[in-house]
């Protein structure tokens, strides 16, 4: 049977990844399914529940989700030889999952905005009143991680979110929706994942992306093998491939920050050391997820 990959990467990216892998491993054929993280997880869980998970490899948004699967015993431990070139915080010590790239969440602003924000706190300024939007953690995995990350930063915390809410910020849909409302000028500022505005700017959209000085949160699009996989060998090859230099270059070409040490940064990004990635503890975040979601909707339920 073919190797089945479930991924939340956008279509073209998924296709590129798979193409790269198949070029390197002509004997393995890959079928892939892509969808938003919640949907792909719902699909996977339903399959597991029905006793016949179809997927072999997952390449999806965030470590928290894979941490959950790991704890449920659904993942296969595999120690990839490529792990050596990665920061220890970017993969699971037991080899259940490995981060493949860094998708950071920063600030997007419309070029016609009255000022250029440089810090998260700028969004709570009076000039930004009613002009801020962000993806809702309830629909976007990255947004949840982002909130959980920012909440852990000294000087931000839930108070920051409360100030934002008081400043008329809205939490709408996913990252796409944020991009649309900022690009169309309906809102002036938004929290958003890096690659979207950078790509759109290249196409001519009136948007600009900034990495705030406090640092950015990041989701890392980890890869993991399902314990039930019938193609474990091919799956391991896939993991090795995406972690390999070649695989990482693929991500680079697509416009992402590779997770592997010593790689270049894509076009349009500032130097790697000017980007401060805020840390997050996946296991910890997993435990507080429910509470965090409640807190969040508690804040944004009152506006």
């Amino acid at each position: 049977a073919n190797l089945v990959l479930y991924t939340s990467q956008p279509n073209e990216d998924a296709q590129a990844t798979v193409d790269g892998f198949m070029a390197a491993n002509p004997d393995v054929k890959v079928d892939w399914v892509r969808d938003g993280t919640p949907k792909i997880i719902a699909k996977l869980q339903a399959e597991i529940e029905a006793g016949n998970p179809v997927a072999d490899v997952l390449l999806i948004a965030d470590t928290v989700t894979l941490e959950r699967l790991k704890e449920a015993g659904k993942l296969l431990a595999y120690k990839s030889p490529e792990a050596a070139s990665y920061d220890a915080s970017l993969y699971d010590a037991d080899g259940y999952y490995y981060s493949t790239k860094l998708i950071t969440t920063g600030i997007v602003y419309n070029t016609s905005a009255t000022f250029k924000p440089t810090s998260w706190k700028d969004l709570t300024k009076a000039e930004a009143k009613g002009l801020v939007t962000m993806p809702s953690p309830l629909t976007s995995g990255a947004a949840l991680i982002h909130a959980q990350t920012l909440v852990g930063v000294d000087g931000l915390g839930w108070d920051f979110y409360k100030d934002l809410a008081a400043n008329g910020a809205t939490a709408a849909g996913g990252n796409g929706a944020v991009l649309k409302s900022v690009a169309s000028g309906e809102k002036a500022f938004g929290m958003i994942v890096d690659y979207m505005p950078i790509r759109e700017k290249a196409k001519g959209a009136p948007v600009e992306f900034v990495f705030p000085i406090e640092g950015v949160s990041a989701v890392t699009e980890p890869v993991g093998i399902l314990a039930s996989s019938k193609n474990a060998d091919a799956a391991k090859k896939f993991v090795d491939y995406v972690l390999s230099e070649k695989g990482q270059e693929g991500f680079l070409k697509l416009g992402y920050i590779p997770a592997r040490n010593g790689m270049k940064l894509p076009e349009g990004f500032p130097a790697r050391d000017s980007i401060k990635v805020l840390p997050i503890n996946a296991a910890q975040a997993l435990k507080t997820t429910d509470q965090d979601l409640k807190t969040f909707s508690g804040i944004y339920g009152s506006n």
Partner: protein
Amino acid sequence: MRGYVRPGNSQPAWLFPFVVIIVLILSVLPLARLAMTGIVSLAHGGVGAVLSDPALWQATYYTLVTAILGTLISLAIGCAFAFLLTLTDISSKGALSFLFVLPMMIPPQVTALAWVQMSGPSSPLLKALHIAPPLGSPQPLYSVGGISLLYGVQHAPLVYLALRAGLMALPRDGVEAARLSGAGSLRVFRDIILPLSLPGIIAGAAISFVSCTGNFGIPAILGIPASIYTLPTLIFTKFSAFTSRTFGDVAVLSVLIAMIAAAGLAIQERALRGRDYRVLGLSGATAAFELGHWKFLLQPLLWVCIFFMLVAPFFALLAGALVPAYGVPLTFKTMSVSAFYEILFRQAVTRTAFVNSLSLAAGTALCLLLVTVLTAYALTRRKDLLGRIVSSLIEIPYSLPGIVMAVCFILVFAAPLPILHVTLYGTIWIILIAYLSSFFAVSLKPVVSAFHQLDPALEEAARLSGAGFFRRLADIIVPLIAPAAGASVILVFLIACNELTISALLWSAGTQTLGVAIYNLDDSGSSDLASALSVLVVLMVVFMMLLMELMAKRLPRGVVPWRN
């Protein structure tokens, strides 16, 4: 004693059991599977926690309120169009009814976004009128009212199609008798037409209500920014933070939705009970009203409606397809058709998606037509409790959000079928079955209401001519309910063409549908490609409607809803 039947029964003995089996497969099996999983996952407690969560009751409240308001709005718009276009001498009827069906083809998210932009600070329309609110002022559509309004707009064509068939069966002489009694047009409308078309109105209201309870796209865009969660959006958030209890929570939420839908159905039953709508004697001549000078008021009003429901969102789509990126103003310089070029000639996925969606939609519509006619026949001749249970079971799948139905079907079909040892999961067939299950209710409603109006003598005459069950079904009954059958086919086809969530979860390589393709393009930031594909889908539907127009002469009268 071969050949004898139970007295007083015009249906063959196998018919009702057959309907029950269909309902068992399409509704009971997947729902029961979810219920089972839910019970297992809640076995270690947690029901209390789910039920005591205030968010749940908040969502239930919002679901009810938006669904009721949305239904009322869609009834108002849909009935107005149906009455004006079917019963009056308003001009350009054909064009109006042709256009009125189209908004169903524009994805609700697109309509919602188009409206948000139209009514927001960057609205070109409001800017031109110099009444655009300042940048950053709150968006009025992010509210219960906004959600209801969009529900109404989105579902008005459903009401229109369900009602139109019933209006066409209105006997002319009944209207004439009322006018001669001295009743003016409005009075005739209130006393005769409205009550006689009640089965159609109620069918429309029921479809609309059930659609509202299951809708995800509109509350996701308009509700979440204002923290208005409906049960479908709440279910979605449960899936996004998956825990061992999720299936249990989802099952509980689904039961709530199902209960709301069943309550709606019960109200519908009550409203129709004990009444007689059979049109006695000959139907065939339809009623007609002259509008007189009202025409000059109503005609532009209808066009304004069409503008907001169809033209504006469509141009939003078109504009989105013609600019390279969001926020780039549309000028002759920035405009490019490269997105269309890319979609039509580069993306292999487009062709498969078109083929898949069209064949799925056509297959669903036609299979359902067959099943629906049989089911409606059996159900309208059966007034007992069992009959009512069966009709509510048919209703529930459509009332649940697509993601729930998709999960149900994965649960049932992910493992190979017992005995047969084939796996449907991953093939296009599972999508077909899920569509059949989900859209059964949509297809059934108009047909049932048409059966309510049928003069039984017409079937009796056919029986005495010697026509057996299938024969009279084909020769007499189906042609007599043709307008309803046509409405049913078109409704299902359009809804299925556009469907997203079910196929998104059930699709795999090679079986993606248009809805999935558009969603994926949009999700991956290629909104220009997504818009271009949407525009193409709308154009394709227009093209197919025109084809039907050509065929219309050979079809029974009234099948094609934009012809009079």
